[in-house]
């Protein structure tokens, strides 16, 4: 896969001058995905959300490639339609270029409102990569909880006070749901692992079929931390096994990053305002539940890696 020097010689497909917050992880994800894709023509569809809004504030656009937006809930459907049109043009000889299709959606746009259009596009087996930049809440409209928001996190619609202690439900595991679509490539990664993300994007784009990558994206505003630490937080999510980095290729699991020692989840929680209340003694039970969920999921993932790679499976 391409190294940094090689990647830096490709055209930069996202310009400066967009209006994402200083230190926004979504800008890092978009740039790294595009640098991995920039060796061939690429068409992007973008669901409503911070990335779309901030990169295309009228009359400007930061995108230096074909880019399409229509609404919040239908980015995958838009992308699949463009891919189908391209296939038809190619079949009739009107286009001969090899063109790739990428959709970006936030967690709200992917886990919740755009979920059925995503599921449909994957089931119809369009050749397209869907990238969820997952900051674990509806950030662009003021930090509302989504089904990706983790247990115990503050959001404006899962407040913290005398009675409520942040979000009361565990998050949906969308990566598993995408694996259940039996598509040829599903990946999960985080900001802070440029090589893993760009490698996953290159693998996905080489795959002849629907592919999905879920990228955890630290959001300095909604998570509450020093913006210089955006990549540090992504790595802590992985080192605590809160957000494991893995891929499922044709049903076979591979954990791409195995932390040398699993750090306790408090190392991750204590750096973020959205979890600050959890460190109070009366909320120790919530922290214990978060840790238990992490431990169980990590054990499950290791088990899946082992048994899915056994001969004959």
């Amino acid at each position: 896969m391409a190294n940094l020097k090689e990647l830096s010689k490709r055209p930069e497909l996202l310009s400066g001058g967009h209006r994402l917050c200083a230190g926004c992880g979504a800008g890092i994800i978009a740039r790294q995905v595009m640098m991995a894709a920039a060796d061939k023509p690429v068409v992007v569809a973008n669901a409503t959300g911070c990335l779309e809004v901030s990169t295309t504030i009228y009359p400007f656009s930061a995108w230096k490639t074909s880019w399409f937006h229509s609404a919040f809930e239908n980015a995958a459907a838009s992308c699949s339609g463009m891919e189908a049109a391209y296939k038809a043009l190619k079949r009739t000889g009107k286009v001969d270029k090899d063109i790739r299709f990428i959709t970006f959606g936030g967690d709200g746009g992917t886990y919740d409102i755009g979920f059925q259009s995503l599921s449909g596009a994957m089931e119809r087996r369009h050749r397209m990569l869907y990238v969820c930049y997952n900051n674990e809440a509806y950030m662009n409209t003021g930090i509302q909880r989504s089904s990706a928001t983790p247990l115990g996190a503050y959001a404006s619609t899962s407040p913290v006070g005398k009675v409520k202690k942040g979000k009361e439900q565990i998050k949906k595991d969308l990566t598993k749901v995408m694996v259940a679509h039996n598509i040829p490539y599903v990946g999960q990664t985080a900001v802070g692992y440029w090589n893993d993300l760009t490698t996953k994007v290159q693998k996905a784009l080489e795959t002849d079929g629907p592919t999905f990558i879920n990228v955890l994206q630290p959001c300095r505003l909604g998570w509450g931390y020093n913006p210089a630490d955006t990549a540090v937080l992504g790595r802590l999510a992985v080192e605590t096994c809160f957000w494991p980095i893995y891929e499922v290729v044709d049903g076979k699991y591979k954990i791409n990053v195995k932390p040398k020692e699993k750090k306790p989840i408090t190392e991750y929680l204590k750096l973020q305002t959205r979890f600050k209340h959890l460190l109070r003694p009366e909320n120790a039970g919530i922290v214990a539940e978060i840790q238990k969920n992490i431990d169980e999921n990590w054990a499950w993932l290791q088990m899946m890696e082992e048994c899915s790679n056994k001969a004959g499976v």
Partner: protein
Amino acid sequence: MADIKVEKKKGWKDLPACDYLEAGSAAAFETGDWRSEKPVWIPENCIQCLFCWVYCPDSSVIVKDGQMTGFDYKHCKGCGICATECPGKKGNKAIKMEAEKK
């Protein structure tokens, strides 16, 4: 690049229902004035790993022929990620953040 001026705010009735925006035109918009701190490059500590470039959310680390050459201060928002990620040479970082003179 065409010089795009921000027009007087339009009401919703005047906005186009569908529009094409010029690719990469956001580069004409200055975000450098958001900074409260600015990254300063110290070339003698630089090992040319390009981590600063790959992690900048604002495409504001300038790389030419595979070599880091400085910052695009017109767009850099001063987040400090490049300085955090910079390994530098023997523990001496090649990027430090300095208060922006107002």
